[in-house]
């Protein structure tokens, strides 16, 4: 866990790499600052980097995350089933159905978080942006 934290703390930052520390005492000139500002502004339009920037967790952390995902999916499923049962008076059938759906959702969330598909609903997290865009377009074309 600790190395991950330090990796975060010392992540290369846009503006801090070029700041001179105490080795020379005169403040940086305004032209220098201007150049650095322009460089930083150039960096302000990167390609979206959702991948690779995952939450840094150690073994214990990811184990806890997996357990949490599994249980919360199940809990939400059962909760929805219970509420629907209360509303429709079909106790206990919807709760049974949603128990299994919730278990499925929990396992799906675990699968997503373990295989780094991202946290999103759908499987698009693993694809590139253009790919899913085409898929969505195709789906829209399919609709009458």
């Amino acid at each position: 866990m600790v190395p991950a934290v330090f990796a975060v703390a010392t992540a290369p930052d846009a503006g801090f790499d070029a700041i001179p520390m105490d080795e020379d005492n005169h403040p940086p000139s305004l032209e220098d600052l201007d150049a650095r500002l322009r460089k930083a502004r150039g960096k302000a339009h990167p390609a979206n980097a959702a991948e690779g920037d995952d939450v840094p967790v150690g073994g214990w952390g990811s184990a806890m995350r997996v357990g949490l995902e599994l249980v919360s999916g199940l809990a939400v499923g059962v909760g929805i089933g219970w509420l629907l049962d209360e509303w429709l008076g079909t106790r206990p059938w919807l709760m049974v159905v949603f128990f299994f759906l919730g278990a499925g959702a929990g396992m799906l969330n675990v699968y997503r978080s373990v295989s780094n598909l991202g946290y999103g609903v759908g499987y698009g997290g693993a694809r590139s942006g253009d790919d899913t865009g085409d898929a969505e377009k195709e789906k829209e074309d399919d609709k009458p």
Partner: protein
Amino acid sequence: MAKPLEQFEIKTLVDIPLGGLDASFTNASAFMVISVAAVTLFLTVGMRRRALVPGRWQSMAELSYQFVAHLVRENVGTEGRRYFPFIFTLFMFILFSNMIGLIPYAFTVTSHIIVTFALALVVFLGVTLIAIIKHRLRFFSFFMPPGVPLYMAPLLVPIEIISYLARPVTLSLRLFANMMAGHTMLKVFAGFIVVLGLGGIAPIAVIVLLYGLEVIVAVLQAYVFTILTCLYLHDALHLH
């Protein structure tokens, strides 16, 4: 020996009955106010001089600003800039709540599920609203994974919806469980010190280590909450 869960007790400081509702000002409210005040003080006093070459406080304020700005830029993209003030506020509030909770005798606001769930719910509802406003009805195609045969939809769509609804639950539970478990553990080991008498040196050593771990957890959980908010926001803006 003090009970390990006593520290989470809500105590009413000022009783405010609001037409049947209990809107009392409690120790939890007090520590939320303290957190907000501390963040405000930290940032405004830190940035008061606005020196070209920052001093210590200005450096810290700029560092936290830049840290979150970097996070938003990397995980949401350029469109995420509009939501930066909210994400920065969220990060600073959680970080300061966690850190202030580590001061002895202080109350940890984030160790209550209702506080973290309220935060997560604001994020969840906000992100869902942004997605619906931006993509209108196409938002609901989010729940149908691309490339899946249509006859699988009755099974997959409810699972995807439940998986989506589980987001605020995991988001809030993660922060709450980490904070509560850590503080309970500290208190349990603190109880051993009194019981063991002279041999209490050993639990004191453990507590010093645990305390260091708790500082890491406090920062890490604020970071995790923020980065998950960023990822959800990215999902909402791009819908994959």
